[in-house]
């Protein structure tokens, strides 16, 4: 075979392989994109922040630590200083209660808000994970599988609520740590999460998400003065399993209102679906260009040689 032909076949082979890769990649991307097959019976938790007493309680934090085998909370419940600054979840603490001043007046009761993973319906963390270590279960909770996690922490970059935490001081088997809604021990069996059970004021209600939404609107309807006319988490970032009622604007109590109603995996989705297309078209395009260039060079060379010959003849 002459070299240019062989070259062509080689280039074409590479192009075909890449195109095939593109075709394979396509259904994969389509299949796994995180859209929950919305199980209408999936669980959720409704938190009524107007009921939480916070100080001298934090039973949910205590129960959470116990249930997950985490060290007990390091400040006693009666210690008011923990509320001096806003806390976030950590590798050893999957839920925290924060205190916010009541925007309706300094004389009004401050607002306590429990924070934990929201168990998004379209979790950014799970769509960001390149080894599928995070997964939305059909029961609702978003769970984590440490046996495949590489520790890239892209899930932490992606989470709009800043929930996943990392074991930075573990050199051999660091894990991502967050609330799993007590999936393994409780919710997969239909039982309430530990924090929900421990709450003396029944701030949280565990149940089917659809029932909780109904309940929430009944509460708002029944007492429109007490509540903001909004159920936080019904639609935010595509909907979350953990939802909130509040007597103050949500932005003021640490629940960001600018996140939009679109599931965050939607943003890279367009980009990702274009990639296989590029994979399919690009090699052909560049390979073609390569062959064109090659051919042009050869023609040029031939021309030159011919030119030389005639030149030589003329000299004679």
């Amino acid at each position, binding site marked *: 075979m002459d070299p240019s032909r062989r070259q062509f076949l*080689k*280039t074409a*082979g*590479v*192009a075909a392989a*890449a195109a095939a890769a593109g075709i394979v*990649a396509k259904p*994969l*991307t389509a*299949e*796994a994109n*995180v859209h929950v097959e919305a199980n209408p019976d999936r669980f959720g938790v409704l938190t009524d922040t107007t009921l939480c007493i916070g100080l001298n309680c934090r039973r949910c934090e205590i129960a959470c630590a116990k249930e997950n085998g985490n060290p007990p909370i390091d400040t006693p419940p009666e210690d008011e200083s923990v509320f001096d600054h*806003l806390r*976030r979840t950590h590798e050893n603490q999957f839920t925290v209660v924060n205190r916010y001043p009541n925007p309706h007046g300094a004389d009004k009761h401050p607002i306590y808000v429990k924070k934990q993973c929201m168990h998004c319906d379209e979790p*950014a963390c*799970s769509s*960001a*994970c*390149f*080894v*599928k*270590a995070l997964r939305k279960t059909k029961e609702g909770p978003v769970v984590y599988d440490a046996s*495949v996690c*590489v*520790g*890239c*922490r*892209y899930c*932490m*970059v*992606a989470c*709009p609520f*800043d929930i*996943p*935490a*990392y*074991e*930075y*001081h*573990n*050199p051999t*088997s*660091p894990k991502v740590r967050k609330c799993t809604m007590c999936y393994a021990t409780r919710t997969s069996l239909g039982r309430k999460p530990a924090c929900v059970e421990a709450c003396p004021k029944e701030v949280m209600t565990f149940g089917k998400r659809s029932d909780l939404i109904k309940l929430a609107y009944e509460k708002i309807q029944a007492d429109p003065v007490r509540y903001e006319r909004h159920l936080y988490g019904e639609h935010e970032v595509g909907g979350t399993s953990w939802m909130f009622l509040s007597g103050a604007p949500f932005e003021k109590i640490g629940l*960001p209102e*600018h996140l939009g109603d679109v599931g*965050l*995996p939607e*943003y*890279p989705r367009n*980009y*990702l679906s274009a*990639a296989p297309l*590029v*994979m399919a078209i*690009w*090699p052909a395009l*560049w390979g073609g*260009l*390569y062959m064109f260039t090659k051919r042009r*060079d050869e023609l040029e060379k031939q021309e030159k040689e011919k030119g030389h010959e005639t030149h030589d003849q003329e000299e004679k």
Partner: protein
Amino acid sequence: MAAPSIGRPAGSDWVREKIFLGMTPREYVRSLVTPGNAVAAVILAVGLPITFIRFTQGMGAVSNLSDANPWGVWIAFDVLCGVALAAGGFLTGGAVHLFGMKEYKPLVRPAILTGFLGYALVVVGLLFDLGRPWRLPYPMMVSLGTTSVLFEVGWCVALYLMCQAVEMLPPVFEWLGYKRLRQWAVGLTAGATVTAVVLSTLHQSSLGALFLIAPGKLHPLWYTMYLPVYFICSAIGGGIGMIIFESSLSHSYFKEQTKHHPHGEFDKLTIGLGKAGAVVMYMNFLLRWLGVAHDNRWELLTTGWGAWWLVEVVGFIGLPCLVYLWGYRKDNVLAIRIAAVWSVIGLILNRFNVGLIAFNYTSTERYVPRWTEIWVSVMIITIGVLIFRWMVNRMPILLQHPDYAGDEH
């Protein structure tokens, strides 16, 4: 990297020629005592204990990474900048082999070597940053998270590294004197070049797409749906800058090897690159404004973040573009070199902005790298420079191997 001496009878003559550059071991060791090497030695001497602590006590022991700031300089510099600056490799390969710009051939090998080392060092940087680096192959073989942009980045980087390795084979075989193997490797370059161009256009933009998932966290002047487009275009700009920078440096540092290449001719190439640089930087400049116009972010330009954005876009894209243009018009090589370095710094600034500075901009817990983190990054670059020099001194990278003079590859 191909281990140089494998499968070769290690006759002492051969070692002396190939490894010790024709010197006796004593002479060779003595030749290594230079100020530059002393600096490198200090960097490594401090870096190795840091590395030890990192892998025995966790990354928390040597970094300021936190739950609020999971990505630091190891990602922003080692990965985001490393990959972008390696774009020179596929650019020159593509220009010469695909667009037939043969006059740039002398720049191909050094650029591909820079690109290859750049990528290899990205992987080294990742070893520090990943919690369980030994699971690096997991996204490829164990559990495929196809919804993740990072999945695509991982695959592309792995495949691209292989392409560049293939493109590096001919000089390695020339050095070792394996003619038949070299011929075979040359045959593969076409495929590798095409694949490399495909892959880099994909994953350069994927690095920008990584941030699409975090619209609430990246400042809106940087967060736009054009992020992937910005990343590939700015990588081309920075890649051109790197080719100019790296080739000028090599030309003065490895004088002995480049004297066959007349200075006037080399300057012409630099000026040609400068023109390309001006065009690309101009395009980047326009694109950045397009994002602001598209998302209607004009009012943000009067804020502090807006001022910082202007510093980046006007100061590090617009100005170097003008300097390129001026240098090209006036045939001024120095101006073009200045513009090249300027635009490389601009690229680094951009990656830092997206990855660190304008990221988490509302967070109260701001990230400032610990010196040990920076030291690790500096150490990684140092290793790259040392390997580059080691290879250029031995292999026909800048120089054409006399046996293959006139050969098309």
